[in-house]
């Protein structure tokens, strides 16, 4: 039994700590906001210039001047501040955002991340992903364990163009959770989805990793 996307997002939400400022990437990472524990207070940052991101609006609340980085309509909160893109990335690049949860095409065992382009396909650009991985203190990747062709996405080395080098701290897939205590250490398998065996994880993973408990 592998984890669903919601269960992966819920697992990522366990990494949130009270008072964190957090940037959630587009796609599955957005679901993390639905799983914040009631005793944890976090502030979501959207890199287009919102600190204190609210929920999606009701039809009556829709305001075209309030959108998130995915260009979706959102709402503001009593804590919200609006900033310019330069100030927003100042928060990111300056290390003031504690955690970012992002999607990925590939992660390498040395923490390299590829999530912005596939050679031969139309390149849309990195958006804010390179800035986020270079600036945010802790990076969690949420991704399927295998790609659509069935190949491992957690690899010895990335084959796709990089978004950042040695930037990933935790990888949560539909099969397992890998973590490392710092960016000089190897990744360690710390959890498996219910019913998923160690051998199944090994078979589906190209990256080398340690196993906890050893």
């Amino acid at each position: 039994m592998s984890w669903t996307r919601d269960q992966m997002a819920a697992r990522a939400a366990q990494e949130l700590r009270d008072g964190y400022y957090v940037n959630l990437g587009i796609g599955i990472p957005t679901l993390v906001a639905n799983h914040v524990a009631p005793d944890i207070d976090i502030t979501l940052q959207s890199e287009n210039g919102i600190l204190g991101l609210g929920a999606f609006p009701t039809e009556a609340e829709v305001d075209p001047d309030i959108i998130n980085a995915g260009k979706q309509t959102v709402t503001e909160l009593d804590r919200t501040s609006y900033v310019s893109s330069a100030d927003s990335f100042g928060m990111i690049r300056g290390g003031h955002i504690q955690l970012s949860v992002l999607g990925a095409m590939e992660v390498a065992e040395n923490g390299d991340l590829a999530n912005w382009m596939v050679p031969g396909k139309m390149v849309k650009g990195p958006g804010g992903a390179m800035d986020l991985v270079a600036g945010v203190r802790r990076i969690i990747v949420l991704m399927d364990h295998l790609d659509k062709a069935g190949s491992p996405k957690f690899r010895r080395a990335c084959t796709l163009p990089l978004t950042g080098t040695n930037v990933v701290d935790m990888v949560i897939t539909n099969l397992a959770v890998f973590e490392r205590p710092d960016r000089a250490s190897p990744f360690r398998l710390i959890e498996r989805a219910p019913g998923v065996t160690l051998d199944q994880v090994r078979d589906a993973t190209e990256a080398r990793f340690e196993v906890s408990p050893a």
Partner: protein
Amino acid sequence: MVQKVYDSAGAALDGMVRDGMTIAAGGFGLCGIPETLIDALVRSGVRDLTIVSNNAGVDDFGLGRLLRTRQVRKMISSYVGENREFERQYLAGDLEIEFSPQGTLAERMRAGGAGIPAFFTRTGVGTQIAIGKPTADFDGELYVMERGIVADLAIVKAWKADPYGNLVYRKSARNFNPMAATCGRVTIAEVEQLVDPGAIDPDHVHTPGVFVQRLIRATCNEKRIEQRTTRSAHAA
């Protein structure tokens, strides 16, 4: 008082456009884009433009309109999805793209406007973005040098302005507009509301008038929404 307020976008652009020029534009996606001035640029017929803008609009709206008329030669952007016309021209080799990471792009515009020709950032180190750019080690970390951007013309969208060109933006429509306003040799702002002198609290000015040479009332305020996402009122 120097007269900064012009009657129309066409009048404000008069004498300001030439083929091959670089134009910086505010906006993120379709939010906070200078709709009125973009349409006036289309009508001006100016060609071979280099456009500095986080995004490239959609096929029939925003900067997509300048792409459709083939007035753009090069885009400097962080993300250009959502635009088939862009893709068509790019794949045909008719359009050049320089990708700049979003925060780096914002800082390049800010730096250009602040008289800083280049700066160092960790963003993009070890990626394709850093190829051909100088790097330097500071305190044991590697940084890549990025250049400031100064544009011949900047076009921005604000919510309110007074006749001195003091600007106030609204909510997340601020985005790239303040930096775009500073990096233009000439900056033209279109505004939803033109208010009397003194009507804007000096403590609430986002862009001071020194950065704004010309002003018009925005006549296009469609504010198209790319991803209208709502929740049911009952679930609230």
